């Protein structure tokens, strides 16, 4: 009776030849799953630590941004009073981004805003010059608008931007021989710790200020218009640099947060898979042993 039943059982099982390779395949995939698990665990550690670093940097950057924002508002106060004249269309775009990646959509946000501004053909000249701060946006814009790039800056934004950085940038812009009617600074505005949006700040250069009627209402001892224009440009660059820096830290924190969450989800899934595979392999081995033993 026993013998007949075991014979029947052996016959009803999948052929013995099939069992060995699938067991071998399971062992191979078990190894693969183990390797994947190890690498995803490492990645999760890295993204978690990047998120911590970005959080602490964000706290500092936000404090600097509060001060910088007030500075920027005070700076553009004068433009609120000097009426906006119909300027020429040749705008100098200063695009503010940074050199480092892994920060979500910061760089593509400013690049898209610049391209959208260029698409408005009746407001912007086609060969308006563009100056980019930061390598990432430089790469994107050199693919989209290669003929318009004039100057690029890098190594700015590694730490909280200082007025010295902004003054250096403004100095290089003013000493270059680029001709423009108006200056537009494209940057990321800080909306909240989890969101930002691209924005444009416009600065009038010296000759535009002089011709504006509101400006003539101001008394000046000597003609300091040129100095004022240069100073406001440096101030505006400083305020936007600081705000863009804060946006970048918050975006990096959110991106790394999402990445860590995804990584831990993946680790859970892979661990389940690994355990199931391990148990299946053990069960197969047991079945083999038992059938082998009962066949004796």
């Amino acid at each position, binding site marked *: 009776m026993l013998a007949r039943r075991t014979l029947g059982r052996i016959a009803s099982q999948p052929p013995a030849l099939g069992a060995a390779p699938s067991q071998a395949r399971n062992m191979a995939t078990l190894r693969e799953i183990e390797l994947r698990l190890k690498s995803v665990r490492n990645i999760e550690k890295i993204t978690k630590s990047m998120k911590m670093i970005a959080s602490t940097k964000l706290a500092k950057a936000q404090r600097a941004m509060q001060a910088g924002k007030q500075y920027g508002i005070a700076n553009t106060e004068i433009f609120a009073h000097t009426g906006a004249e119909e300027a020429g269309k040749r705008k100098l775009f200063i695009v503010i981004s940074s050199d480092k990646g892994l920060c979500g959509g910061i760089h593509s946000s400013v690049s898209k805003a610049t391209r959208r501004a260029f698409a408005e053909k009746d407001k912007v000249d086609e060969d308006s010059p563009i100056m980019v701060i930061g390598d990432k946006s430089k790469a994107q814009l050199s693919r989209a608008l290669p003929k318009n790039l004039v100057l690029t800056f890098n190594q700015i934004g590694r730490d909280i931007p200082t007025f010295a950085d902004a003054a250096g940038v403004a100095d290089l812009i003013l000493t270059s021989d680029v001709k423009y009617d108006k200056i537009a600074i494209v940057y990321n505005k800080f909306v909240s710790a989890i969101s930002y949006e691209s924005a444009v700040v416009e600065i009038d250069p010296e000759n535009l200020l002089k011709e504006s009627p509101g400006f003539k209402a*101001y008394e000046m001892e000597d003609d300091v218009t040129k100095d*004022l224009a240069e100073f406001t440009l440096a101030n505006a660059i400083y305020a936007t640099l600081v705000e863009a820096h804060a946006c970048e830290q918050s975006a990096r924190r959110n991106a790394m947060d999402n990445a860590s969450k995804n990584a831990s989800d993946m680790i859970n899934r892979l661990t389940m898979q690994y355990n199931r595979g391990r148990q299946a392999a053990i069960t197969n081995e047991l079945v083999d042993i038992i059938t082998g033993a009962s066949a004796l």
Partner: protein
Amino acid sequence: MGILANHAPTIEPLRPGVVEVIEGGNTSKKWFVSGGFATVHPNNKLTINAVEAAPLDAFSPEAVRANLQEALKVAAGNGSEEDKVEARIEADVYEALQHALSK
């Protein structure tokens, strides 16, 4: 230069020196400003844009004197024209600081 309320709109460049804000009572606050612009707007607002400003008691006279000597040395020395001009500006700031602190 003194600015009272409802001053005519003006733009003034600021040399390094002391800015004093006199509040309602007889209190006043003093800051040393490194330079910048003071703008009076038509809507009776005064904006002072300065690169750096610090309350007067944050400065130490010793350090000011030492740095002033350094700057004067470089200004009188034989560096490049740019270096000498920078040192001259530095010396001006320190002299103004000294003057403000000694009052």
